[in-house]
């Protein structure tokens, strides 16, 4: 779109599913230069003290996240979003262990981690209520930047992270999570949300392509 208010686009997405041989499921997800690995083990055994009688316990660990801002995003955004998307009543008294490890930081960690977790969950074949994806938009000097890298982020006045689940009615999806920081008005927020929706569509398409690739051999057999 020839809109001078928006700059940049979603960075190149790359993903390797099932690359860890010892884990039940894994995803090595790259968004531009940012890389986050996610591994999933389960449903497995859990100690009596941690066991939940009616639901599966979901333990998410974000390794080596040291800065305060990211820690806050992990607690308020990454962990709840991932946990709630999983259908937990089918395997009570078990545990699903999800480990997210940041291999390279370029821009915000949280959206890349969320997308990586969703891809790993798809690789695991675990029952989920919906799939989800996260998009980051930054705003500065009257211009929005889609999926900012570290340089663009450092120059931003405001930064928004939107998390979507697919929807037939809303373009891009329904918003199920959001974090906004910086100085902005409601108009800026709404415009950022609008730009984020277009990127969300691309990320959901990427998920579909990756899963189709993975199931390619089975698809041929099934006819």
């Amino acid at each position, binding site marked *: 779109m020839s809109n001078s208010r928006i700059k940049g686009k979603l960075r190149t997405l790359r993903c390797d599913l099932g690359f860890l041989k010892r884990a039940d499921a894994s995803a090595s997800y790259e968004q531009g230069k940012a890389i986050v690995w996610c591994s999933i083990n389960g449903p*497995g055994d859990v100690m009596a003290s941690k066991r939940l009688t009616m639901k599966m316990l979901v333990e998410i660990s974000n390794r080596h996240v040291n800065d305060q801002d990211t820690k806050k995003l992990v607690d308020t955004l990454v962990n709840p979003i991932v946990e709630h998307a999983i259908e937990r009543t089918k395997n009570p008294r078990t545990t699903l262990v999800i480990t997210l490890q940041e291999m390279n930081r370029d821009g915000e960690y949280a959206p890349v981690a969320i997308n990586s977790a969703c891809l790993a969950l*798809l690789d695991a074949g675990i029952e989920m*209520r919906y799939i989800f994806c996260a998009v980051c938009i930054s705003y500065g000097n009257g211009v929005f930047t889609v999926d900012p890298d570290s340089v663009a982020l450092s120059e931003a006045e405001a930064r928004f992270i939107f998390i979507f689940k697919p929807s037939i009615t809303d373009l891009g999806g329904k918003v199920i999570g959001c974090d906004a920081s910086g100085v902005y008005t409601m108009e800026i927020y709404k415009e950022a949300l609008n730009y984020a929706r277009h990127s969300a569509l691309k990320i959901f398409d990427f998920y579909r392509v990756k899963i189709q690739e993975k199931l390619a051999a089975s698809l041929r057999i099934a006819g």
Partner: protein
Amino acid sequence: MAQVFLPGETITLPSSSNSDPKVGKGITKKKNGELVSVQPGILQQAENMIFMNVYSRRYIPQEGDKVIGVVTSKGGDTFKVDIGAADLAQLSFLSFEGATKRNRPNVKSGDLIYGTITIASKHTEPEMSCVEKEDLRAHCMGVLPAGGFVFKVSLNLARRLLAQNSIITLLGNSAKFESTIGMNGRVWISAFDTVQTLAIRDIILESEKIYESELPMFVNQKIRSMRGVFPSLNAANKMEVDNS
């Protein structure tokens, strides 16, 4: 035509199929009759049933599945067997052919067991048995023979190996070995020596990515390289399918 669905997607069946099919694994029926998939996979239709073919590595116990387990401990009248699921399965001493209270089966910790899951529910620990319920005979279940090698595969590959004309049959034309396949993704192979056993394991693992129609050629190539025949760059040689 097979189609991939992601969780949360509505499934629309082609108009030619049954309009009210029985719903199987990976799909739920919402109150308004809408079919929604809950697991990522390929939609399969058989007769009037629909279900998702999901790729998974983690076993979830199902009644009637024949699985390979490892005995971890004995307690009271039961063995505890690790079948690769969240809970250990219980195997009673009496669930072996010819076992009585006086005549206990010769099973130690660490032994490999091939048995059937008799009870499986999300609320209880699974139970298994090494005899068929109808006639109390073993039908090849029980402790696996010594020697041999167990390795883990995905559940999909295990199901594929158990199908009619699987790679096991093709390999059997050229190599001599015994095999047992558990629905929990565990495969036991026993061949003449270690080298052959590992070669067969490698062939099975690689076959996961090969399309059904290309399997015979793939097996031939692999058997030839196992026997030390160098791959030929001559195009004519590549088309040759030989059973030597």
